[in-house]
């Protein structure tokens, strides 16, 4: 007969076409009733071999592809890549460009967190905050469109500065955004943060403690949600972050709710950084280092320039032989570029350290013992993007 000991484990194939896996993720769940016993993440459906591509492209040719990594925070990807190349080449960036970079990086962070908030609310069943966050994200994308013409894949930050100067209209839009956004943010905040259902769905769900979070290599808000006070903007400062005044939120609980609160506070801190930048930004000056080897000599057409341009296009900028690792604090976590150069215009090997890749493989340990509904909230709280996971 059918004994109790013989209860069967149900195996469910979640994805790659599933509304809650945020892309083409696939997880094989082993269920005991509704309790998750094991999760096996399977990825590679979006694998494009970016690291191999990078080996066969000059540094500036690879630039637009970086946008495709974490496609909801392209500006931050650009910034991280450019900073890595600048570290390799030892380049300087003019002050105005530094401010512009921080401006767009923090705007990108807000946009990325907004899309996370909307999708997380949607995953847990609340439909409405999705539309509120998309309204606010839309204004940010309008601003990006104003400065570089693109709405999703910007390719705006360049080695040695940014591709073009920001316009007065952008500053106006930004100031208006900074005035209205905190109030608008309260709408979604009011719908969720103190909501009893929301709290019961997120509190004590998907807990990962301090040591495990470090050992599993979580980064960004997920790491800080486990009580680790670590932010590359403070601990490995880059750009003009040291001169800005902002706090790093971190909470010791390590559950979905802690990650949620950390991200919400990060949005507030980003607004704070933006306000400071708007005040401090120098009104004039270069937006691009004119001595940057990547700058195409376009202004004065004279003899030899065409050849120089051609060489720059074909051979690229010869970087000194050596290797460099640079990690930047992206909305999703630490995005790092490890570049090995052999002295040619192309990287000999480029390893892209993406936060999402690590987060996906930390999922089994976080979600084990939870219910089916929990995996959805944990996935959205880890906030991975499969463009980054599969690279």
């Amino acid at each position, binding site marked *: 007969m059918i004994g109790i000991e013989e209860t069967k484990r149900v195996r469910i194939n979640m994805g790659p076409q599933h509304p809650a896996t945020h892309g083409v993720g696939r997880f094989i769940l082993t269920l005991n009733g509704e309790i998750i016993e094991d999760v096996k993440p399977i990825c590679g459906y979006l694998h494009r071999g970016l690291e191999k591509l990078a080996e066969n492209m000059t540094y500036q040719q690879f630039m637009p592809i970086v946008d495709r990594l974490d496609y909801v925070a392209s500006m931050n990807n650009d910034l991280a890549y450019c900073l890595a190349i600048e570290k390799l080449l030892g380049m300087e960036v003019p002050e105005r460009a530094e401010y512009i970079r921080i401006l767009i990086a923090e705007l990108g962070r807000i946009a990325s967190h907004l899309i996370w908030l909307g999708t997380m*609310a949607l*995953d*847990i069943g609340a*439909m409405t905050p999705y539309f509120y966050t998309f309204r606010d994200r839309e204004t940010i994308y309008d601003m990006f469109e104003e400065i570089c013409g693109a709405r999703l894949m910007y390719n705006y930050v360049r080695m040695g500065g940014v591709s073009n100067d920001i316009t007065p209209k952008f500053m106006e839009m930004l100031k208006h955004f900074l005035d209205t956004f905190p109030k608008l943010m309260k709408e979604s905040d009011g719908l969720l943060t103190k*909501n009893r259902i929301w709290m019961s*769905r997120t509190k004590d769900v998907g807990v990962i403690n301090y040591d495990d979070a470090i050992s599993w290599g979580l980064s960004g808000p997920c790491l800080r949600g486990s009580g680790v006070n670590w932010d590359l903007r403070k601990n490995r400062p880059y750009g003009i972050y040291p001169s800005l005044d902002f706090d790093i939120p971190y909470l010791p609980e390590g559950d979905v709710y802690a990650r949620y609160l950390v991200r919400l506070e990060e949005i507030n801190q980003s607004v704070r950084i933006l306000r400071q930048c708007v005040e401090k930004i120098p009104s004039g000056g270069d937006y691009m280092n004119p001595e940057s080897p990547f700058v195409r000599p376009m202004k004065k057409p004279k003899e030899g320039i065409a050849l120089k341009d051609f060489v720059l296009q074909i051979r690229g900028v010869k970087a000194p032989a050596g290797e460099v690792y640079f990690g930047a604090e992206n909305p999703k976590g630490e995005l790092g570029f490890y570049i090995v150069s052999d002295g040619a215009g192309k990287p000999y090997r480029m390893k892209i350290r993406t936060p999402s890749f690590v987060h996906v493989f930390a999922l089994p340990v976080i979600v084990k013992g939870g*219910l*089916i*509904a929990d995996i959805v909230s944990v996935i959205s709280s880890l906030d991975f993007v499969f463009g980054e996971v599969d690279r």
Partner: protein
Amino acid sequence: MLIYVLTGAIKLLVVFVLLLLYALFMLWFERKALGFIQIRIGPKLVSSGLEGLLQPIADMLKTLWKEDIVPHRADKLVFWLAPVIGAMFPFAAAMAMPFGPPLKIGGSYFYLSVVHVNVGILYILAALGLTSYGVLSAGIASGGNKYSLISAQREVAQMVSYEVVMALALLNPILMAQSLDLYDIVAMQAHHLWFVFYQPVAFVVFLICMFATAAIVPFDLPEAEQELVAGFNTEYSAMKMGMFPFGQFVTILVMSSLMVIFFLGGWTGPIWNGHPWILGFIWYWIKVFFFVFLFIWSWGTFPRYRYDQLMNICWKILLPISVLNILWTGFALIIHIPMI
């Protein structure tokens, strides 16, 4: 005898058409109301002058012309039967639902419901309870789709649990009115205060059960899109899939009218109690549609509960509360705590 059969048949036809129209209206209303909540517009292109009122008709036509896919491994008969059951039993429940106050013609009353039985409420509960067979059959017949199966499991557990609590919550007004007849219960409230003032606990419990039985956010676990793709709907297509929401909309209507009849005095109002008749009619439908809107409102506001939390709420909170409430009501009735 013949006249009974004839009036019954005519009433049946009228109510059936009305419910179909209501379901179409709800399709539009739901999207418009959600659109209003979510700072968007909602349907507007079909019949632009009427704010897209004809959109549901276009949708229905589209659904009828879609390809009807039956999975290879599906249990064909049950697969076909499931949406029929899912839509039929809510309609059956609506047969006993009053569509307005009874018309007094001469000395006798003309009831605005297809069947008028003295155990009306029990009949409605029975029909609503049988509705879960639709989802259950859909889940089992879907050819081994695990999402559908889990969804069916959830639906059954949810329906069985919450029906118990719902019946217990309704028992309080029944005890006070000493009747299972819906019209008697309203008549009782016409002479006293509405039952919501005597039975606030039962009111809240019933309100929660109302959402759970209709499987609307925050209790829409059977078709939790983010977890179970679309639950029991996963393998369905075309009109078969369209029939489930029809059933759900009718369930919403029946639950709202039960709510109004049992706790908010049915067609009695704060002023002009049922005189003239048409005023009672208007009172009734205003209240009913407030609750219908409440369903959509909650849809646009709340996140979804988790399965175990849903069960905990039912068995660990609502059930003890409603049992205690019944004890209190019985006690109060025995010692004759005076009704105002």
